[in-house]
């Protein structure tokens, strides 16, 4: 499967790779065996993440972005497939085996207030991590806490405050500081700016860029705001109903989307600055199908304006295009 992305001009080293990663949930299950339905949240995903890049992950609500993110960080057990991190398959590790991995891969969550325990001071929230992993001797913890606060642009005095005493943007910074405490190499950020105000969102986006520069981090950046994703990512993957429909270099993907869904998505973004040329907006009809019962062929075929019989019966696989992008479509646009 790695051929799918193998054609990418990959200047840097491979950090993380997934191989046919699949995650199913069972919903409506009761004690009797055989009950419940399988919800295919993430299906057969093969991607690569290279050191130092930012892979943007976009898609509509429910398309499986968070689930994929949580599988990558091994917060969820995967149903099948591999996650190869620095050459080691981490998909089946148990909690003890995961311990070193946890230090390398970190997650940042969408809702900064929900991801911080409201009953603990910032000092404890971040300090606990340092203690548990014995990252610093006792005496140096205080200094390290200060450093981390500086790093994310918060005052050191705030260490003694509780999460509810911060604004949303500040809380997100605390979440970032906590993730940085373990000195990770890869950060999976799950919609880190969606809950923030427009004027604050830019601050945090900038912070991410700064940190990447300063600390040489690699990001998987999940968002549904395509403008933000474009701003931060070097490559972008578009998800639809648990699968990746298109993945490739950011600028090329935004300029010339190859998948009809990507195209519709990009055309639907309202543009604040008056457009010079009249944009052709594609308004998709219908609703996103249920992941409990996805369409048989191409998952997008139910809403795709170009869908034909083949699309409805045969599921397209992610195929590389000439320009290094990959797209899962029988009839990629050009």
């Amino acid at each position: 499967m790695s051929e799918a992305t193998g054609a990418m001009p990959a200047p840097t080293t491979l950090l993380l790779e997934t191989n046919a990663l699949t995650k199913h949930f069972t919903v409506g299950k009761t004690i009797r065996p055989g009950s419940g339905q399988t919800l295919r949240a993430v299906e057969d995903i093969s991607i690569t993440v290279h050191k130092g890049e930012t892979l943007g992950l976009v898609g509509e609500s429910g398309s499986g972005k968070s689930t994929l993110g949580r599988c990558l960080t091994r917060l969820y057990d995967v149903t099948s497939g591999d996650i190869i991190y620095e050459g080691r398959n981490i998909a089946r590790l148990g909690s003890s085996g995961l311990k070193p991995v946890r230090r390398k891969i970190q997650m940042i969550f969408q809702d900064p207030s929900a991801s911080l325990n409201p009953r603990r001071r910032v000092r404890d929230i971040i300090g606990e991590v340092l203690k548990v992993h014995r990252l610093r001797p006792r005496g140096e913890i205080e200094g390290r806490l200060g450093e981390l606060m500086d790093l994310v642009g918060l005052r050191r005095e705030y260490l003694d405050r509780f999460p509810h005493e911060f604004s949303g943007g500040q809380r997100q910074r605390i979440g970032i500081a906590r993730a940085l405490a373990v000195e990770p190499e890869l950060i999976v950020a799950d919609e880190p700016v969606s809950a923030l105000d427009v004027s604050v969102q830019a601050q945090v986006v900038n912070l991410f860029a700064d940190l990447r520069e300063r600390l040489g981090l690699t990001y998987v950046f999940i968002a549904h705001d395509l403008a933000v994703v474009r701003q931060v990512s070097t490559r972008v993957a578009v998800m639809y109903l648990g699968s990746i429909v298109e993945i490739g270099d950011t600028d090329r993907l935004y300029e010339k989307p190859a998948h009809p869904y990507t195209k519709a998505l990009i055309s639907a973004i309202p543009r604040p600055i008056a457009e010079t040329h009249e944009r052709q907006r594609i308004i998709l009809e219908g609703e996103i199908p249920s992941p409990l019962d996805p369409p048989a062929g191409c998952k997008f075929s139910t809403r795709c304006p170009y869908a034909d019989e083949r699309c409805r019966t045969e599921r397209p696989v992610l195929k590389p295009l000439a320009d290094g992008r990959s797209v899962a479509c029988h009839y990629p646009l050009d």
Partner: protein
Amino acid sequence: MLLAILQRLAQMVFVMFGISALVFLIFFATPGADPAARIAGRNAAQETVEAIRKDFGFDRPLPVQYARMMTRLFVTQDLTSFVNRGLKVVPQVLSAAPVTLSLVIGAAILWVIGGIFVGVVAALTRDTFIDKGLMVLALIGVSMPVFWFGEVMNLVSQSRFHDTWLFSWVPGLGYKPLLTDPWGWFKTLIIPWFTLAALYIGIYGRVLRATLVEAYQEDFIRTARAKGLSPSRVMLRHALRTSLIPFVTMFGLDFGVLVGGAALLTEVVFGLNGIGRLTYQALLNLDLPMILATVMYASFFVVIANALVDVVYVLIDPRVRAR
């Protein structure tokens, strides 16, 4: 659906087994409860006691006794009481059930209406004196021990003021069957209903008020008001309708245990020979077969009530209906 029913049944069997085993063990661990001696009577010769012990099988190992008793309770249904000998417990429980049902259903109607009234009025007049007054009344209802309140009701209606116009209609205590004497049934039960309901009106009123106040923070209430609906319609069709869901859960549980005999103190105080009094008498006598029967019946109702709550849920909360 069938599977769901089976699952309920499995649950019921588990709960019933757990309870019956517990009851059984407790009974045999209790000193002074030797059924043989008590069946033999006071001043009985040792031979008599031994003969009875053998006759009733009390000399067998406990699991055998348990199995025998459960068979007689559920299969042959001829289990008889240790105290009122020859009294078959199953028909006894069945004949006591209508009394308890009459008491509990009547009280339930009262407390549902009363609870809704108190909750709605208090929520509508939130933070005013009416609200506070109602909440204090509700608390008084909650904090009065029911046996005491019952006795006071008797004192007032049967003795002190029985000769006045206020209570001269009150008939003597005891149950009158609904079918043969509906008016007498009503008259004898009205005070017990009220007594039992007082506690629950308090609880339900308070809970409902809290959920209503919470519901009023919800967006959909704002939508309803923005639609130009009258306040009463907003309250009844939107706020109350959604707030009834926790109300129904509580109701199901309480109703279940009450029908199962938890109203025993009320029944005792008002001389109603229902499940509760049956349980109470059986407990005082440590009459194992009767205790087993009433307890099995009670756990049956608790589980049934749980199941019913689920059904009602589906009726009032379409969200559960999904899938």
